[in-house]
Each structure stands twice: as C-alpha cells, then as structure tokens.
C-alpha cells in the first residue's frame, strides 16, 4: 500500500549547519504522528520542507504518490496539505473570520473581474465561503470570535483561529507546528480532543511537539529527531522506553 506521506533520505544544510541529515519516514492515512526531539533537532526544517517553504538538498518527499519536494507553498496547499506555524502567523488587520475565510481560498474561484464587478455568482460563492468558515470555527468552538480583530485575541484563541484557518480548506494532511506551545494543562487537553476529532473527520495529522503528555495521549506513532538525524520511529510506548531517546532527553525538563 502506498504510504500517504513518504519522506525519503531528505537532507538540508544551512551554511555551516546540517539541519536535517538523511531523514526518512512514512505516514499512513488517518494516523496522528508526532515529530519530537530536543531544540535544534531539525523538526521545523523538516516541516518547512514538507510544506514547501524549503527545498531539500537531497532526498524526496511524496504525498499520495506524487512528489511534492520543491513545490511552492501554495502548490503544496493545492495538493491538500495545510499547516500552522510555530509563531502564530495570523493575518493582521483582518478579523478572525476573514482569516479563516482565506483558508478557503483554494475552494473558491472568484478572480479580479468578478471581484471588481461584484458579479452575483461571486457573491454567492463568498457567502458559501463565509458559511463554511463559520462552520469550521463552530467545530472548534470559537464562532463567537468571528468579528474580532485576529491579532488582538488572547494567545490561546489565536492558536484556535490559526487551526481553524488550516482546517478551513478541508485538507487531507494537517501539519501542526507546536500547537500546544504556550497552552496550559486544560487547554492542552482540549487541544488533544480537538486533534483527535480532526482525525476522526478524515484528516491525517503530523505534528511537531514538545509536550510529551499530548504526544503520548493522542499519537499513533512518534518520530524522534536529534541533531538532524532520525533516532527512533515507533509507537509512543516503545519510543518512551528506547535507550537512545532517553539519552537524548536526559536532563531535559518535560513541558508541563
């Protein structure tokens, strides 16, 4: 069976630093997989390569059988992959709803001419986009924030809006970059439930995380990176007991 996402022998160097070194892994459809590792392990670089923000120096990335390495971010998005960002990248000077509506960009067509002339079909389309965006926000329980200016919201709410935006296009694969960063225990538990629901709706989830409780609770598989190399890939329980992994984490405090 073709794996959903396949990363093979991917490497990336920045100047004097080998950020990612010959990393390979697969992700099967419907799974929730986490990429963990100490700081500087290359997790975000890996993410950036999968989402088109960076091109691997070597290796290949295929999604649903087609290569996606080297594609532009918007082309990767068009293949059905969506992402959030480690440092929340919401659109400034736009409301939360508008932010989520941009998430639906690929599911709508109206261009310059339709926009200038305010054609009726484009108005209908815009209404549909609005409704879909509100639906996603309702799914995450934040529909009440719709008209608030996105960047003025509380941190946890901004994270939720960004997640809604990523989900708005109905992606097949969702990349979450440290979704629990800055969240307290309760919020993290809510997030865990949310991610599981997202998967139950049919998406596949790949996340970068430091919060071990979240990872252990919801992930089917865990990939461990250290200094740009893969050191383990298995289910959470096995990974937890892996001596290599323990060594890499020894002395590190777990995120609360």
């Amino acid at each position, binding site marked *: 069976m073709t794996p959903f996402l396949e990363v093979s022998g991917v490497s990336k160097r920045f100047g004097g630093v080998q950020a990612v070194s010959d990393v390979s892994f697969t992700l099967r459809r419907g799974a929730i997989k986490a990429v963990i590792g100490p700081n500087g392990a290359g997790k975000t670089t890996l993410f950036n390569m999968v989402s088109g923000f960076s091109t691997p120096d070597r290796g290949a990335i295929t999604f649903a059988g087609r290569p996606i390495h080297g594609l532009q971010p*918007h082309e990767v*998005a068009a293949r059905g992959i969506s992402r959030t960002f480690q440092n929340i990248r919401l659109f400034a000077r736009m409301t939360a709803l508008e932010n989520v509506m941009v998430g639906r*960009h690929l599911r709508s067509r109206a*261009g310059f001419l339709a926009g*200038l002339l305010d054609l009726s079909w484009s108005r209908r389309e815009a209404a549909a986009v609005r409704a879909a965006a509100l639906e996603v926000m309702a799914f995450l329980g934040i529909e009440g924030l719709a008209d608030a200016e996105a960047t003025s919201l509380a941190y946890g709410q901004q994270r939720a809006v960004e997640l809604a935006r990523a989900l708005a296009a109905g992606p097949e694969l969702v990349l979450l970059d440290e979704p629990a960063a800055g969240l307290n225990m309760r919020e993290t538990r809510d997030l865990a439930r949310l991610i599981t629901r997202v998967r139950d709706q049919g998406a596949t989830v790949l996340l970068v995380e430091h919060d071990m409780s979240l990872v252990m609770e919801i992930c089917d598989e865990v990939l461990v990176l250290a200094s740009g190399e893969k050191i383990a890939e298995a289910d959470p329980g096995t990974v937890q007991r892996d001596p290599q992994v323990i060594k890499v984490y020894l002395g590190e405090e777990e995120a609360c």
Partner: protein
Amino acid sequence: MRLHRQGQVGIFVVGAVALQLALVAAGKGFLLTQLTMAAYYTLAVLGISLLMGYAGQISLGHAGFFAVGGYTSALLTTFDLGPQRARPLVSALEQAGLLVARADGYGGEVLAVHPVAAALCAVALAMALALAVGVPVLRLKGHYLAMATLGIGTIVYSVVLGTSWLGSADGIAGVPPFPLPGGASVGGRAGGRVVNYYVAVLLLSAAMLGLLNLVQARVGRALRAIHGAEDAAGAMGVDTARLKLGTFVLSAALAAVAGVFLTHYNGGIGPSEASTMKSVKYMAIVAVGGMGSLWGTLGMSLALNFLSLRGTFGVFDDAVFGLSLVAIMLFAPEGLLALEPRRALAALRERLGGAGEAPR
C-alpha cells in the same frame, strides 16, 4: 454590505454635484477645470493605493504607465496617416471606422486613429508593459522592487524626452477631444467644462466602486492576507506571485486610463507626466491618505492635486510632497486620518527621550 459600498459612492456623487452647483453659483466655475484634472490624477493614485496599501508593493515608476497611456493615445490620434491613404491596410482601417478624418485647425485634414480605438490600444499597451515588466519585477523584494520600478519609470521618461516623434521636450499637442455618447466629449472648448467635470466624477466613481468591491471580495482578502503575512498566505494556497501581478496590471491600467483622459482633456501631453517626481507625488498622496484606505486616498488626492494644480505651493511644490512623504512616514505611517494625536504625541516624546543618548 453591498448597499453600504454603493451608498458610499452615492454620497460621493451627491457631494460632487453639490460642489459643482455651489462653485458655479459662486461664480467660481473655473475651478472645475482643476478639479476635473485632479479627478483624473486620482484615478492613477487609486491604483497605487491598491498596489501599495493592499498588496504591499511599492512602485516608484507609476507615472510611466500614466505616460504610456497618454502618449499612446496622443500619438495615435495625431499621427496623420493621410499620405498613406492609398495603402490597403490604411484604407481598410478607415472603412472599419477605426481611422477618422478631421480638420486639424490649420485648414488641413488629418487622418488619424479614432480616439476610442486609440484609448483601447493605449490601455492595452500599458497593461502589456505591466505584465512584461511585472513578472520579473514582482519577484523582487523591497529595495530591488523599488529600484526596478524607479528604473522603469526613468526609462519611460528618457524615451519620451529623447524621441523626436514623441515630441521630445515639447510633448505632443493637438490631441482631439474624446467623443462620448450624446454628443459630449472630453476636452474641447471651455463650454464643456461642467460636462467634463461630470464625466470625470462618473469615471472616478465607477473606479472607486470597482475597487471597493474588489477589496471585499476573495481577491481583496487574499491581497490583505499577503500584506499581513505573506508566507502564511502562501501556505493557505494563495498564489502570491499571480495576485501581485494582477494588482500591478490593474493599477497600471488605471494609470493609463487616467493618462488617456487627461491627455484628451488638455489636448496634449508632455514628458513631465512621466517624471520620477510625478511618481513620487502619487506615492506621497497614498501615504498621506492612508495606505489601507481607499476613501482617505481619494480625498487626499483630490485635495492635494487640486492645490498643486492651482499653484498653491508655488515653487515649493516638489518640496511639499517630499516633506509630506518624510513627515508621514516618520510620524503617521498609517496615514494622516489614522492619526491619533494624543498617542502620536506620546510616542514622539518617548522617542525624543530615547534618542537623546550618546552625542556625536
């Protein structure tokens, strides 16, 4: 939502009508001339407002597109093809109505392109240029983009200034009026002053409505997203390169239309319309009016252009625009209208305190 926008434009039109009636009643009808010209310049400025304020792209050479529009229609409507009449292509065009004969004011006859056809060519040429130039230029960021657009504007200026059949330093004169339905025309005798004013107002209102629509539509949202966080916009599937190009071409088209109509209105065009200073003026107005605000830009543009055309700034004209650019960028980068006096003063005091360290 829709009515809201149309309502705003409606109010604008009503205001324009009221202004015209008031001016004529006060015996100052001659001011309508400069207002009409200011309105045409505002068309170009609105295009830049979209480009700078929504797509976040700078263009230091937009006067070049204005000039391409104006010069093309001027050249086409004044170049006498009479001597070539016998040629098959020329006579075919004349049969098709694309060429018209008219008296040239010296008792002779000129066979030139019909103003409407010329206008279409002019705008198409400007858009083609924007497309050709935009593809490589918009890949550039920040300074490179600014310099490239500055360079393009300067090339257009050098070309019109240095080419004899474009009139060199004198430009092109004798441009016929632009015919409109109902016997009216843009340009021509002073008696058409009021009609011309309304033509300009209508054109401006239509453009404004279109832009207001666009900003609320999918494209507008995507543009604002690009401006807000370009990488995230890309991650959401927004083809940033294509959208920036589309905005660039649209703004070039608006500048070209402005150039065409102003040329017909004035009966001619000169190389100063392509100068860098003109481009900078457009930019200064957008900055002052507020980069994200179409109405703010419109208001500022009408006011500042009108004052400039009236000669209110005298010999300090360029200096005023230069100074306003600097002042706005230092103190009110969101535009004058977004300024909150108390907050700005507090920020000013804070900065002066902080910058007062280490003397030279």
